[in-house]
């Protein structure tokens, strides 16, 4: 609980800084544009965009559940990075309890989405690429690709779920679990709210 409160305080503090940066970048952009300096305007607008991506990432972190089953947030692994001009923001959160770990990664404007969508929506291709370890599932009405991976021991498995949301890709990975468990955990991620923010 203490870690969670610290996390909220840190996010709130960083968000204030980011809001100021956005305002500053917009002021620079407007001044540069007024002076006909197009390249400087462009750079300042990119800076503003970067700030917005960071804000969006932090808002998404706030939406993610504070616990994943019995696993707690690893606050120091919360991460939001903006990659302007190529992919939007990369958002990451981890959960852990008793050696079991879960990871959520969200890449907005991900170039990998086209590939995942092709597999999900082309039964022929999905069939050809199916090695018996992947299957198509639905999570909260969204199509997703579930992949079984080798676990920490021979009798255990890790699972990875890829959910394309418009131009974004959510990757959810849980160690040592079953396919039913990962799908149950995925139900606690508010996909619709996240989609609304990042699209």
């Amino acid at each position, binding site marked *: 609980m203490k870690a969670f409160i610290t996390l909220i305080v840190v996010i709130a503090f960083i968000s204030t800084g980011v809001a100021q940066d956005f305002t500053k970048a*917009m002021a620079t952009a407007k001044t540069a*544009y007024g002076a006909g300096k197009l390249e*400087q305007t462009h750079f300042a*607008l990119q800076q503003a*965009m970067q700030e917005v991506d960071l804000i969006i990432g932090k808002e998404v972190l706030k939406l993610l559940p504070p616990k994943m089953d019995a696993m707690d947030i690893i606050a120091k692994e919360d991460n939001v990075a903006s990659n302007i001009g190529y992919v939007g923001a990369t958002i990451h959160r981890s959960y852990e309890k008793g050696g079991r770990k879960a990871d959520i990664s969200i890449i907005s404007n991900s170039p990998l989405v086209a*590939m995942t969508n092709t597999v999900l929506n082309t039964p022929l291709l999905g069939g050809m690429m199916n090695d018996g370890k992947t299957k198509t599932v639905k999570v909260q009405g969204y199509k997703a690709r579930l992949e079984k991976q080798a676990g920490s021991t021979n009798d255990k498995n890790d699972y990875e779920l890829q959910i394309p949301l418009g131009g974004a890709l959510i990757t959810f990975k849980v160690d040592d679990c079953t396919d039913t468990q990962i799908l149950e955990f995925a139900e606690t991620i508010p996909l619709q709210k996240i989609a609304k923010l990042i699209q």
Partner: protein
Amino acid sequence: MLCFLIALMVTNTASSQGFLKKLKDKVNKAVSKEVDKKAGIPPETGSGNSNSGSSGNPSNKGGGGLSNTAPPDVKAQMAEAETAHAAKNYSDVRYSLQQALMGVEIQLGRQILKSLPASVVALNVDTLQDIVMSTQWGWSNLNIHRVWKNNADKQLTITVGNAGIYAGLAALYFSNAGMIEANGAKQNFKQVRVKGNKAIIQYEDSKGYTLIVSIGQTSMIVWECINFANEQEVMTAANTFDIDGIKKMLGEQ
């Protein structure tokens, strides 16, 4: 390395889509043939102008096309971004910023076009083929395109652009002479300099000369020269361009 991997994946996706389209066309063609045979319809000879496609749909013979809309109003988009930001509507902030960026890029592209010479090695500009393209990805897909030609099939095309994704790969060519010299016995690909900038020149019988100059961190100028007499003529043409001016407008060092 990451850029390369992602570029590869994007290419793979594009090629897989291309493959699927080809597959679909082939299947359609084969099915139509079989249906025609069963219905007793004689096969098409392939010559002559057919008014309909293999699926029976009429072919399009022309239309008004799309009208050119004005580029986004940068000031209005910046104001909208600020309003949306105040309302914490971040998805709309992003959209408005993208529109503003596109507006700036198109204005910048037009400025660069204006700075290009009206005539190059006795070839005249064909402004009808001018293109300024921005794809909302913030600089990485800004492309400016202009053509000069004469009546004797001689043509020069210039493309000024930013190739964010390929920049790393292109840098390999500019910095690794050994790699280029290893291209077979006949050298049709070599390094040169244009006004002090590193460049590569390539010759192919089917395409003519291609000269690529790397400017700054990620921008490039490409000249495609069709029916030019020799390498010297290509270099003379390239030297008539104000490369430093373009570099400055793009904000490259």
